[in-house]
């Protein structure tokens, strides 16, 4: 399969949107485009599967490349492994669901759908890039539209939030770029030889340990900001709470995963020595994010803040899994990325549906909605249950894999971190059940709510879509596990000093 299709399709969709007239046409085009994206992602999955089962064990499949800027040795070079395929699938799910929940956008709908679809091009490009410069290019592509989405279609203190998000993510990008350039200048095989941005080539080289020590923090922290690394997580709550529903879904569902993916694919994969050296710090920050994020969530009163802070906590699992550097824990980290992407998108979708009807997101003001809007409330409860790690849903599988993998790292302090991370699931249960108990259960707090309608077809479809993904992982995790394990194994081989179970 030609992976460039994944880039071409959103671009064509965007162009078509520009040519459309009226909301009906625009959303039909956006819906079709996003639908084909999902189809394409499934085709990719099947083809990838076939290729792997026919014995093709190359690290990256479906590679293609063109020279882009010869003198700096920058190439358009794409390819996928199981991890990228999983992330591409996630993106396709979230984008389609995002289009569906934005069905009735009224202000500047053309621009809105344009930006939304455009974002997906950035995300796909990021996940398929094998050239670090291209990867950075797509990372940037996925930041700017978010600024506009929040600033224009947002709610509350939107200018402040948009600015904060954009600036913090830009700071992250700046760190990433510094790291990438630093890496680039340490890629010469012989003194004075050609440098390269090519991921696979760099992986074959031995980057000098000193250079690794210097540039690993840049890359890890830079990508880390995207995935809410403590203490650079504060863009998350403000950004999410001001963003329109679809943007929140994209932001938490995909954008935060760009960071996790980057930490893994670029920082850890290319600089394994530094990853080992810095592991204690990563684990420390991840553990803080997990447990501290959970406690902060417990005190929030706005549903979007609750989900945003819980994302900080849940993305901590991704970083914890990466920091633990065992095969199982990294597999768990990738699973958590996919799982959290689906779950948090579903949660934001449900919150958006509640908000668009009740015009409040404050837990104290809501109540008894289960009786009035059974569908939306059930979705809300299910997203919550996934968040607190109910077996049968994806969150459980991912978290347990992270715990299992983390425990394999036998150092006592790491064990302590694992236990603390495990303990966070109790706190998660506290805040989720508080939110669920107050909003959808209990007596109806406002008689106006009685006349509100339940989910419309597009909202239902969006929720079912995301939930199907959650269930597919939760009930049958083996396929996802099988999909990503070979990719993780390659990263672990690279890490060399793989800590595996005896």
């Amino acid at each position, binding site marked *: 399969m030609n992976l460039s299709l994944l880039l071409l399709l959103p671009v064509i969709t965007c162009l078509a949107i520009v040519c459309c007239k009226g909301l009906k046409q625009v959303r039909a085009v956006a819906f079709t485009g996003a639908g084909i994206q999902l189809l394409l992602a499934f085709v990719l999955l099947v083809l990838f599967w076939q290729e792997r089962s026919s014995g093709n064990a190359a690290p990256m499949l479906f590679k293609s490349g063109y020279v882009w800027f010869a003198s700096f040795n920058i190439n358009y070079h794409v390819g996928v492994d199981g991890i990228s395929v999983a992330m591409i699938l996630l993106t396709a799910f979230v984008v389609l669901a995002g289009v569906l929940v934005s069905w009735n956008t009224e202000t500047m709908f053309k621009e809105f759908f344009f930006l939304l679809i455009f974002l997906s091009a950035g995300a796909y490009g990021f996940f398929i890039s094998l050239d670090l410069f291209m990867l950075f290019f797509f990372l940037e592509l996925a930041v700017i539209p978010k600024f506009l989405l929040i600033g224009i279609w947002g709610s509350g203190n939107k200018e402040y939030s948009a600015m904060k998000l954009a600036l913090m993510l830009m700071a992250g990008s700046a760190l990433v770029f510094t790291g990438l350039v630093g890496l680039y200048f340490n890629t010469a095989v012989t003194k004075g030889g050609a440098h390269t941005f090519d991921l696979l080539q760099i992986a074959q080289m031995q980057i000098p340990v000193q250079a690794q020590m210097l540039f690993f923090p840049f890359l890890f922290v830079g990508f880390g900001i995207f995935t809410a690394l403590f203490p650079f997580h*504060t863009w998350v709550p403000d950004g999410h709470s001001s963003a329109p529903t679809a943007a929140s879904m994209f932001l938490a569902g995909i954008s935060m995963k760009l960071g996790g993916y980057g930490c893994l694919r670029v920082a850890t994969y290319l600089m394994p020595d530094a990853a080992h050296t810095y592991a204690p710090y990563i684990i420390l920050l991840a553990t803080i994010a997990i447990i501290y994020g959970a*406690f902060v969530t417990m*005190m929030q009163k706005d549903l979007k803040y609750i989900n945003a802070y819980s994302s900080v906590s849940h993305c901590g699992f991704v970083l914890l899994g990466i920091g633990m550097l065992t095969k*199982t824990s990294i597999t768990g980290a990738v699973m958590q990325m996919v799982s959290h992407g689906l779950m948090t998108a579903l949660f934001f979708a449900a919150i958006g549906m509640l908000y668009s009807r009740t015009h409040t997101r404050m837990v104290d003001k809501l109540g008894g909605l289960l009786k009035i809007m059974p569908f939306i409330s059930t979705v809300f409860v299910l997203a919550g249950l996934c968040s607190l790690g109910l077996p049968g849903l994806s969150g459980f599988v991912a978290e347990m894999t992270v715990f*299992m993998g983390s425990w*394999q790292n036998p150092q006592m302090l790491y064990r302590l971190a694992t236990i603390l991370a495990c303990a966070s*699931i109790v706190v998660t249960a506290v805040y989720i059940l508080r939110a669920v108990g107050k909003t*959808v259960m209990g007596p109806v707090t406002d008689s106006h709510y009685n006349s509100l309608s339940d989910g419309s077809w597009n909202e239902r479809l969006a929720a079912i879509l995301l939930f199907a993904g959650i269930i597919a992982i939760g009930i049958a995790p*083996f396929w996802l596990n099988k999909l990503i394990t070979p990719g993780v194994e390659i990263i672990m081989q690279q890490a060399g000093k793989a800590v595996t179970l005896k």
Partner: protein
Amino acid sequence: MPNHFYILLIPLLPLVSFLVLGLFGRKYFNISGGVMGTIVLLAVTVCAFVTAYDYFFITGKLNGIYQHIVLFKYTWLQFSSSVSIDMGFLLDPISVMMIVIVSFISLMVHLFSLGYMKGEERLATYYAFLSLFTFSMLGLVLSSNIFQLYIFWELVGVSSYLLIGFYFDKPSAVAASKKAFIVTRFADLGFLAGILILAFNAETLDFGTLIERLTNGQSSWSIAITSASFMGISALTWALVLVFAGGAGKSAMFPLHIWLPDAMEGPTPVSALIHAATMVVAGVYLVARLFPVFSFDGISLNIVAYVGILSALIAAIIACTQTDIKRVLAYSTMSQIGYMMFALGVSKYSGEDGLGYMASMFHLFTHAFFKSLLFLGAGAVIHMVHSNEMKDMGGLRKFMPVTHICFLIACLAIAGIPPFAGFFSKEEILTAAFQNNRFIYGIGLFVSGLTAFYMFRLYFSIFWNKDAGLHDVHGEGTMTMKIPLIILATASIFAGFVPFSKYITSDGAPLETGVNIIFSIAPVLLALAGIALAAGLYKKENDKPARITAALGGLYHAAYRKFYIDEIYLFITKKIIFNSIGRPAAWIDKNIADGLMNGLAWTTAKIAAAIKGFQSGKIQNYTLYFFAGIAGLAIMVIYFWK
């Protein structure tokens, strides 16, 4: 054991029933959903009985020993090359016994609910949740892998959550469901940590392999786990104690029992199924499942024994003071589970010394019948009186003769009066305790007297005592409510005669047991004394109880307030976790973590504002800066030149 497909149906049918009723119930089966669920459960029960027959009488035995048979093994999630979650069915004496109990009691509850929940607008949802619970519980008992058990363990927890909070517009029900979930979740943290330790050291999650590796003292795994230690305690003990903590949470053992009385907010048939007969014994089942490993490690087994007896005692004392009939039953459940726990705790693995294990399972078996009967009977009473409080009841024997007789039978059974079921199992437990630990035996004996007292206090207060001035409004209840009561009452009479020790023992070999009349005298006399005392105090309305409580004063009050354990928990959660951890964390995030970022932005903006004046666009200013710069440079050059 042949691969009979009907064994697969046992958990699968309730799952299908859950999916159908959950997805389409509201629209299509809101009336018929109950009947559908009940029919499905009937099929499940038949399958379970056939399986049990097949296992115990035809295929389960090899050379006189009952085998552990694993069916349908499928790798669900591969953690590493050696550790994986394999979904499979494990058939051994206890799991087969459990599927019979679970499906049978569940069927009774399904049937009873047809009458009890009549007119409920969310009937299909109710039956969907019941099916979900039955599925999870059956999955739990059939698990062949400790992680698989943990998965169903959590599912059981969430079904319990959903059912306790079934009346979700009642804030107290929502609070109770939340409490039950969070307390058991907290306990499950221990279970999870225990699994992590076991998986790391034994390199397997499979029950069979795990037990084999850890109970063979020479194996490298066993040596590794017993020699690794943390804070002077071996990794094996840690793992088992942590796993037991999970079990204690689910089984409402002290001090993790606080959720059980509140769980009575759920519909009463649910309490009969989940919080009396099946789910709450999951902790006992878990210890029994890992019993070979527990008995290999003496320390953790001792902890099981003492936690069990302490819970039995505390719960029995509290039960004497409660006035809500369901809460009395809840504490009595806790007390009886304490019995099962300490029976396991005083047991050893093989032969004659394994009596405690067999007795524990026997008590689990008989208790399921009479306790669910008590709850369903209480349900029938509540259905009639529309109140849970004893003060609203009295003289009900006239209105509800069937319930009255059934309830009496259940009370006699739980009090341990021969020849009712509870007598036999309690007898075995006390014998086992007597042989191994006289201290525990003494307390156990005392508790059995208390049990008789509080159960008959309940019985006399409901069916005798004053005439509460009730009118027979809608009769005793439908046939679907009476039939389960009668069936369970029959079971409560005869379950004790099952030659249990022939089938269910820790090592799979049959055990010879018999009733020792001399030994039985003490517990039976104590029970009779308890009943007599209750009759004297509560059969007729009088002021003796009030005088006694006044005389006991603070002691009574402490027991009535459940020894202030709830208040302690409230203090910890409200004052410590919320106010001392949550609030500061939120403050730090807002002011320090975010303040740092905002401060950075603010500083940048300030600096920009300060220096933007330089870009004034005025030629004169630029000329001034230019010459000032030249002058500065000149001074520096001259100064540094030297």
